[in-house]
């Protein structure tokens, strides 16, 4: 449950979300991009393969991350989104803000 964070050699921070992507991971998620090692990453990749549920709190967390990188859509990639997660992102038209794969 929760998140796991890894930094690659080429400055890409990979955040893996497992289980429910909701308010319960709020603090962890914020720490994932504000720590000394992860603060100035070249790119943030969020692996949603294990995310079975995403709600508006999660959308809010993504917006905070987006604010952190200065609203540059190319710096954030949402990977392996399930159909259910894609639906939520689609309704909110978040594909206009993030690179969703």
């Amino acid at each position: 449950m929760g998140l796991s964070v890894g930094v690659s050699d080429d400055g890409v921070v990979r955040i893996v979300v497992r289980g429910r992507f909701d308010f319960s991971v709020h603090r962890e998620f914020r720490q994932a991009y504000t720590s000394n090692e992860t603060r100035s990453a070249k790119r943030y990749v969020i692996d949603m393969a294990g995310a079975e549920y995403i709600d508006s709190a999660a959308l809010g967390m993504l917006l905070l991350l987006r604010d952190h990188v200065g609203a540059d859509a190319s710096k954030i990639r949402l990977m392996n989104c399930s159909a259910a997660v894609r639906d939520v992102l689609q309704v909110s038209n978040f594909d206009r803000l993030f690179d969703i794969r």
Partner: protein
Amino acid sequence: MVPLGAPMKILIVDDEPTNLVVLTALLVKEGHAIIAATNGQEAIEKFKMERPDMVLMDVLMPDMDGYEATASIKELCHDDFVPVIFLTALSDEQSLIKGLDAGGDDFLAKPYSRATLRAKIRAMQRIRSLNIALREQRDELAHYHRKTQEELELAKHVFAAITRNSYHDVSCFQSWSEAQSHFSGDLILSARTPTGDVNLLIGDCTGHGLSAAVGAIPISDIFYAMSKKGFSIGEIIQEMNRKLADLMPKDMFFAACFASVSADGCSLSIWNAGMPDVLVFDRECKTAQRIGSAHLPLGIQKYDWRDMGMQIVDISSNTTVLFYTDGLVEATNEAGEPFGLARLEQALCAEPDRERTADAVTQALRQFTAGARRRDDVSLLAVGGKEWCATSGFSYVHGEHTTRMPAAWRMEATFSAQSLRNFELPPIVSNFVMDVQAPEGHADRICTVVTELYSNALEHGLLGLASAMKDGPHGFARYYHLRESRLADIKDGSIRISLVHRPLGEGGELEIVVADSGPGFDTRPLFTDLAGNSQLSGRGIGVVRALCSELEYLGNGNTVRAVYHWSNTAQPRY
């Protein structure tokens, strides 16, 4: 916090004086303060008086034994944990069980080993520390719970005040809301515009309770104020978006559907930003159209002009449009299955009486989710058609303007067609009149006159649109899109508007002239048939005729002049 090994106040109860002496000596050496009692009754009295941190209790004593005394002492403790260690030579299981049942926490067998006694005291101290910490946390929690309750009450109060201001005097829509817990954070607002349209808003602000209420305040303020002043939905959306982006933290946003029912009840404009598919259900053909979310929710980023188009739906026949928050389709039954869009459409189709739409859907939802836990707030808004809308006349409403002495003034302005792309002129002109002269109670009528004359000048004069285009199914939608595209493309042309106000007794006379640079038209047919005349936009020029004391077309029909009389004392003529 009681640190381990810290000195304690210990009550020793034993009917044998020698035992008391031995134990007292042992414990005083450890640094503890000792209180002694020689029988059960004395133990209880001394306990009440001294409130020791721990009790060493002999079992076999005359009159009241250790078990009885312990039971009484434990009762005096309430939720405070004061350990009681039995001093006993008895080692049989029955005695041990009796001791534990009486409230005893441990045993110390005679003869007393000093090391064992010390270890047991430390163990009891650990448990006591835990108990104290737990009680402190519980008290803190109770305090925060109370604070949270107060904040919820405040949020509830704010929401009630906000929805109280909604326009309820209309029968063309039904709304229904059910909270997941204390009150719903979903927002359903309605407001009547000066020209008789009804603006509707259904939305879901991120967060619950107070955080949702914080967003709801600017949202409702802007919605009501701008609707009342006749601003278009597009302008309201832009202003609200700006305000929310400015005010709210980056992770908060407002998913919403805006809609506007035209004054004649024939068409509904829809704008969906982040809400589930709006269902347009035509009862005649039994078809359901879905209008999905096409925009980012409000409060995230600026909308560009491409985002501002509305979807227009014809609701003049037996059509119902259903808006709802995601709590509705995501509500689950006991098996965890969501209610879903399919079941929602089914419930809509199954109900022939459109006035029962909200009831039918909520009943279907209740049946489906019976027994299951509510996961989110649920809200829905059902909008009907022509027959539903009560044709309300103009209201004589006292505005917020202070009465001014009728005075002479005039204003004239000319706008190039290209500038007219950027804003809606009628609310600006009407609000100008209200700000300058404030003819109390006449705002709606003046706004209607200005809007009618301007729309005709723009749409017929400059854009070359004919009212006949609005006829037929989807006529409004076609007309609207054509209007938008022609306005976006227009290169030349202009509209001049002039206002001349003359004081007249207790009121005044406002002459409005609107001239467009278009080719004009043959105005004769206009005046021969005014009954039910929807030749021109909105309520038709017939309404302007009824509201104004004079109405004439000048030049080759591209200039219109209307005179509106108002008075502080006399009732308006329409």
